[in-house]
């Protein structure tokens, strides 16, 4: 009983340990000639929501990051200033009545696609018509616009009623190689079958092209040899799908160059010696929605109750949750946009007023279900944490809500059916113009989610009609007036405009460009 087993067991255990430890000494990190060398590769980490890299179908954050690096657009914002448009592939003019935008190929920038073909006006026209015709999620961007080629290097975009926001929409619409896309199933109607081709073979004129595409794990970009701009320092970009907790370790260790998806809690604990945090104003705003249909909930449909909610929210706590760079908002429109209501007018907490309004509304402690997407982050602000905090804040004013978290699709389904009494919403701008927020006016798509129908607030609808008609310098004030009124009488309580933050490892990246428009430009990182 005493002699043998020790030896046998030691052997077995040793083998076990050996198997688990072999890796430690075995590896070699040097490059063997395949791909680019280690210091020419930029590694970025993000929590993926990737569906496609087809610019006419993509509507997600992850694909946005990649598409920016791969495709160029007719126009662009001046160094991230979203109120100023400058030429890119094209230059533009707009008629005095805002009805016709004319694009002309930019003589000073001779862009070429990744296969060497020059970018022409035909590519621009095809890309726009395809965006409209295939009826993807972003198709609405060019709703009511007629796109036509008008000369060898010009095209016109015509709208019947005039659309002053059009130049601000165009930087978000990317230009593809028409010839290649057509040869691979691309059309300008719903028969288009180029998505799978475009996912793996991007057809852009940007600094990079896609080398490999795996929407569940990673996307690798390599240099577009025909890129007309300055050759980037990093010849290869690896964008990996990584959870927030792991990004936190990786960015500090230098395993990665840029972390895109850290929340404010995680950012607070970072050591500034090894990393640099860059926060810019995000294009998203968070708000509480309250159903306007008394049959869904008699209280949320009541103006006094809504006022009570507005005064009951402890905004300072909300800003604290949203972290560095978050700012108050006085309407649903982000502060940097034309037509935003000045943030000095943002609501402030007043429990006395809240209780008075509550008394007027006839509310008596009834429990109101409060819905939110527990998996969502709005620019680093965790919606789940926000909901828990709001529950405590509203309780102090005497409002009882019952938290109803749901994940992703489940929350979306209930919310869109218009049956939620109350909850947290977030809206990211499709393009940086106040016209994008008309969806919140009575009877429009987002207002329908809370059953705020046409005719329920005629004064808001009138202001909306006036704002749409306004041209030139009159647009800003007209929209400000509209959104101020909407906030006052509408079923939405604006909460905060969170910041959008990225974290960069200082050892790996010495110089980078980050603006509201483009949070991190791979091509300009050094």
């Amino acid at each position, binding site marked *: *009983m005493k002699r*043998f*087993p020790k030896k*046998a*067991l030691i052997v*077995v*255990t040793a083998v076990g*340990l050996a*198997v*688990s*430890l072999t*890796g*430690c000494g*075995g*590896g070699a*990190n040097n*490059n*063997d000639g*395949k791909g*680019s*060398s*280690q210091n020419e*590769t930029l*590694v970025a980490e993000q929590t993926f929501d990737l*569906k496609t890299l087809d610019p006419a179908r993509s509507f997600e954050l992850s694909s946005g990051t990649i598409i920016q690096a791969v495709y160029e657009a007719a126009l662009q914002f001046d160094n991230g200033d979203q109120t100023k448009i400058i030429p890119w592939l094209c230059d533009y003019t707009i008629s005095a009545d805002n009805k016709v935008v004319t694009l002309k190929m930019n003589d000073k920038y001779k862009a070429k696609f990744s296969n060497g073909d020059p970018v022409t006006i035909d590519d621009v026209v095809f890309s726009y018509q395809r965006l409209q015709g295939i*009826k993807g*999620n*972003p*198709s*609405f961007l060019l709703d009511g616009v007629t796109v036509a080629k008008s000369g060898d290097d010009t095209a016109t975009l015509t709208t019947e009623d005039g659309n002053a926001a059009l130049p601000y929409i165009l930087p978000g619409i990317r230009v593809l190689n028409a010839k290649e896309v057509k040869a691979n199933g691309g059309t300008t109607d719903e028969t288009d079958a180029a998505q*799978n081709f475009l*996912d793996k073979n991007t057809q852009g004129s940007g600094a990079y092209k896609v080398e490999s595409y795996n*929407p*569940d*794990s990673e996307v690798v970009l390599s240099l577009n040899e025909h890129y007309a701009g300055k050759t980037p320092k990093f010849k*290869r970009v*690896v964008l*990996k*799908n*990584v*959870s927030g*907790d*792991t990004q936190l*370790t*990786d960015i*500090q260790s230098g*395993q*990665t160059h840029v972390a895109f998806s850290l929340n404010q809690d995680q950012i607070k604990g970072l050591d500034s010696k090894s990393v640099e945090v860059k926060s810019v104003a995000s294009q998203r705003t968070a708000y509480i929605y309250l159903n306007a249909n008394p049959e869904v909930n008699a209280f949320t449909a009541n103006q006094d109750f809504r006022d009570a909610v507005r005064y009951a929210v402890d905004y300072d706590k909300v800003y604290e949750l949203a972290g560095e760079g978050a700012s108050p908002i006085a309407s649903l429109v982000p502060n940097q946009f034309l037509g935003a209501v000045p943030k000095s007018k943002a609501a402030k907490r007043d429990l006395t007023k809240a209780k008075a309004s509550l008394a007027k509304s006839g509310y008596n402690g009834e429990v109101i279900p409060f819905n939110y997407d527990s*998996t969502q982050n709005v620019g680093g602000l965790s919606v789940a944490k926000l909901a828990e905090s709001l529950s405590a804040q509203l309780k102090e004013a005497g409002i009882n809500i019952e938290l109803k978290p749901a*994940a*992703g*699709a*489940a929350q*979306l*389904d209930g919310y*869109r059916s218009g049956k939620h009494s109350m909850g947290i919403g977030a*809206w990211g701008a499709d393009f940086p113009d106040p016209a994008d927020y008309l*969806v919140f006016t009575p009877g429009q*798509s987002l207002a*329908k989610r809370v059953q705020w129908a046409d005719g329920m607030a005629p004064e808001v609808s009138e202001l909306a009609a006036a704002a749409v008609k306004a041209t030139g310098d009159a647009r800003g004030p007209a929209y400000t007036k509209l959104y101020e009124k909407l906030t006052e009488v509408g079923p939405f309580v604006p909460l905060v405009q969170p910041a959008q933050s990225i974290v960069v490892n200082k050892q790996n990246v010495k110089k980078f460009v980050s603006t509201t428009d483009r949070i991190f430009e791979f091509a300009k990182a050094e």
Partner: protein
Amino acid sequence: MAIAAVDAQQRVKPPKLHPLLRYILIRLGLSVLLIWGVTVITFTLTNLVPVDPVQSLLGELESANPARVAQMREQLGLDKPLIVQYFTYLGHLLQGNLGVSNQTRMPVLESIGNVFPASIELGLSAIVIAVLVGLALGLLSALKQNTVVDYVIRALSLIGISAPTFWVAIMGYYFFFFKLRVVSGAGRLDPWLTPPPRVTGLYTIDSLIAGDMATFGNALQHLVLPSCVLALFTIGLLTRFSRSSVLDVINLDYVTAARAKGLPYRTVVFKYIFRGAMVPIITVVGLAFGSLLSGAVLTETVFAWNGLGQFAYRGATTLDLPVIMGVGLVIGIVYIGMNFLVDVIYGFVDPRVRVR
């Protein structure tokens, strides 16, 4: 063996299948039936979810347009009666077509082909570690029953079972990668390396086939920590299980007899005690391997190991029905396959099983 042979001879007349083969064929038939059952259940459950998958596909504005929603339902085949949808699904399945992901429009089979080898690589190395360490500790613990060694091993195995995987993974990553730098970071390879040419999809094996030792070493470095973390629970489980299983047989008459015959201790432990204790252990190993292959979501998430678990998680949160059904089917097949394998191994290890 002897009894089975005599039995077979007595009943001889028409040429009969070898009992072991017959046993295997029956199990195989049952497995196919079970897989069909899995398709019915995954399909029914997935379609019972009271949420509309179209909503997660369409943007805010598109989803406000009823015509667009109807068109999308038609495109996905959701407008047809459930029973028709099921037979369409089954028909495609028989041709090896698992459908196309609603979200990425990529064939589900192709995506599973991309992520499953990652899970197999992780699961395999975890089960190897777990079996070696778990059995050794269990055996040692049983042989040293009620000594300090036994107490320590039992305490450790309890920790292995009860420590939350997610926490262990994050802490392990922080210490072994960030602080001590003894293992590589998240992912299956360093980002600047290109994966080896695909043969099996397992980077360690493929790099060996390609003769690329640098990539092999790198893949192994990336594999060590996640597989140890993943193995931890199974080590605890196997230790406890093999300990009690060995204790069950250690005092049986045949063991005493073997000892009385004066057989070497080594022979008694490995040929008598261990073999006798093996049958229940095989069951546990089989099931544990099934769960390692399919249920590693948390470990995969922390180590950015893009395997089946993460793929399933994403499918579930975006309500991507073809993905959910595809993953359900694969996991069903894994478990049924493991059970089948365990049954067959029983047949070899324990002659009584195949006679019955």
